[in-house]
């Protein structure tokens, strides 16, 4: 192992330390074997995933990490590959099961790479625990529900005043019909006056139902869920919002690059609200690029003045026309065929509530860059 890696400018131990530091940070488990299945390296994540320490497994046959029948057949797989060179898993990957030290099996996604090091063939297995991924999927769905909720709340804020006005209309009609009908019933009660009073009652009912429908519409927006500000990592906010925003866009082949400045990673924000902003801006950027041949999205951050971090989202779309540019953040202004035109007004409401600013400018390649600022958090314990 040492000999195999003793190349280049680094010394043996430096090289090994370097490799180890990489292995320690890889989130998926990583297991390195020789072409007979003997384990050469076992990452920290692998130790956690399988319950073995590295020195317990070094030199052991990798089949010990597999349940039957692979456990018995693995040596045969390796031999077949050595003899025929036909790849059945290398570079392809598959979903299979692995075996924990305690005997339990769990679903994994396995990817295998092959490399030649100093004339020796080694195989690298990356193992992703799918039980965790399933939990992550559930977390993702919760997050999505929360975001949708915040979206509704923000919409509600924007719409509250017009809804209140709308509700006053039927209430005014109800009051007037009832007063009029009461007057009619107070006076002489001939057939014509009674019929008019009856008609007023019927129309009162219709107006009460109209009021009820407005209330129902408001209630559908408002669901439980309080939010508050705390110290958050921008990298986490971006990763999560990005994952949501990219749902269902794989077929469009969007090239996403994330380039965050670690010096302004900590921000003092309402997590869900800022994710809503990121989500809206990323979705907008994606939609703006769908008709363009090049679809690249760059999410970046850097420190700005006065203790703020600035986040930028740049798309390679066709830009924003001048006639909507100056009212883009107003409610009910939209450039899309469908949509209410409230996404960006929500974004502005949220960012301004955080004391930040949001604006846009033309991108270098003809697209658009949306930028916003957020208050940085003073982190005393800076381990992250």
């Amino acid at each position, binding site marked *: 192992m040492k000999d195999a890696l003793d190349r280049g400018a680094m010394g043996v131990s430096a090289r090994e330390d370097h490799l180890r530091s990489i292995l320690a940070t890889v989130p998926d488990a990583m297991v390195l074997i020789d072409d007979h299945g003997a384990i050469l390296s076992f990452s920290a994540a692998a130790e956690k995933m399988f319950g073995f320490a590295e020195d317990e497994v070094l030199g052991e046959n990798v089949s010990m990490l597999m349940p039957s029948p692979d456990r018995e057949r693995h040596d045969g797989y390796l031999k077949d590959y050595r003899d025929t060179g036909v790849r059945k898993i290398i570079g392809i990957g598959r979903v299979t099961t692995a075996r924990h030290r305690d005997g339990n099996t769990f679903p994994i996604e396995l990817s295998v790479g092959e490399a030649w090091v100093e004339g020796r063939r080694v195989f690298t297995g990356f193992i992703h625990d799918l039980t965790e991924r399933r939990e992550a999927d559930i977390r993702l769905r919760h997050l999505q529900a929360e975001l949708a909720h915040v979206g509704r709340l923000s919409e509600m804020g924007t719409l509250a*005043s017009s809804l*209140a*006005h709308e509700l*006053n*209309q*039927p*209430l*005014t*009609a*109800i*009051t*007037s*019909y009832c*007063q*009029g*009908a009461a*007057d*009619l019933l107070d006076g002489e009660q001939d057939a014509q006056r009674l019929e*008019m009073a009856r008609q*007023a009652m019927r*129309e009162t009912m*219709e*107006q009460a139902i*109209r009021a009820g429908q407005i209330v129902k519409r408001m209630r559908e927006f408002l669901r439980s869920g309080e939010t508050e500000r705390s110290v958050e990592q921008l990298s986490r906010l971006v990763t999560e919002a990005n994952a949501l925003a990219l749902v269902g866009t794989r077929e469009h082949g969007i090239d996403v690059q994330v380039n965050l400045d670690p010096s302004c990673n900590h921000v003092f924000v309402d997590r869900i609200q800022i994710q809503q902003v990121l989500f809206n801006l990323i979705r907008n950027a994606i939609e703006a690029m769908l008709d363009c041949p090049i679809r690249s999205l760059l999410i970046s951050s850097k420190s700005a003045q006065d203790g703020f971090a600035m986040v930028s989202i740049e798309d390679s779309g066709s830009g924003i026309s001048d006639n909507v540019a100056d009212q883009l953040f107003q409610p009910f202004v939209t450039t899309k065929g469908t949509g209410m035109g409230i996404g960006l007004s929500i974004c502005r409401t949220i960012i301004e509530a955080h004391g930040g600013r949001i604006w846009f400018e033309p991108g270098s390649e003809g697209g658009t860059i949306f930028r916003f600022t957020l208050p940085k958090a003073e982190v005393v314990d800076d381990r992250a």
Partner: protein
Amino acid sequence: MIEPERLVHLVDDDAAIRRSVGFMLKTSGHRVESYESGTELLKASNRLDDGCILLDIRMPGLDGLEVQQALQDKGVSLPVIIMTGHGDVSLAVMAMKAGAVDFIEKPFEKETLLGSLEEGYRRLTHKEVTSDRIRDATVRLQALTAREREVLDGLAQGLPNKTIAYDLGISPRTVEIHRANVMNKLAVRSLSEALRIAFAASEQ
């Protein structure tokens, strides 16, 4: 009670409001002409020589303030009563500064509407005797302390309590107390009545 039927020009874009308010006014002895927009009302402006105009402030197309201005431009001097929704008070105060007799908040009680119309008809028939009103208003305002007067002036500018509090360097709660004292001392029940006194006094 053989009074002539009093005429109301009712302007609201909402058909349910035109029908229901029109119905209530008719059952209480009014004649009602309905218009579904400010533009409709203005088209009929050469026939607007009698009655009060009951005008919704929020309408698509021309809003209440714009209609008021257009009426003045055409020389129509019928009394205007503004109907507002909740939260439109600063708009309504602007309308009163522009000469509206009163504003009433939707939904309103019949007595409130009839009271405002009464004031409108009074102006219609007694245009000239405003000096009494001015003198009366001036006398009543003398009962207020300097601070109460400042709060009333703020309200007359259509400012919300919070803004008045900030301008005067006092808490919004204190503004509310002053506001209640103003209403008590002027013996009025609504903000619009208080404003009417303030505006009348300022005509002096």
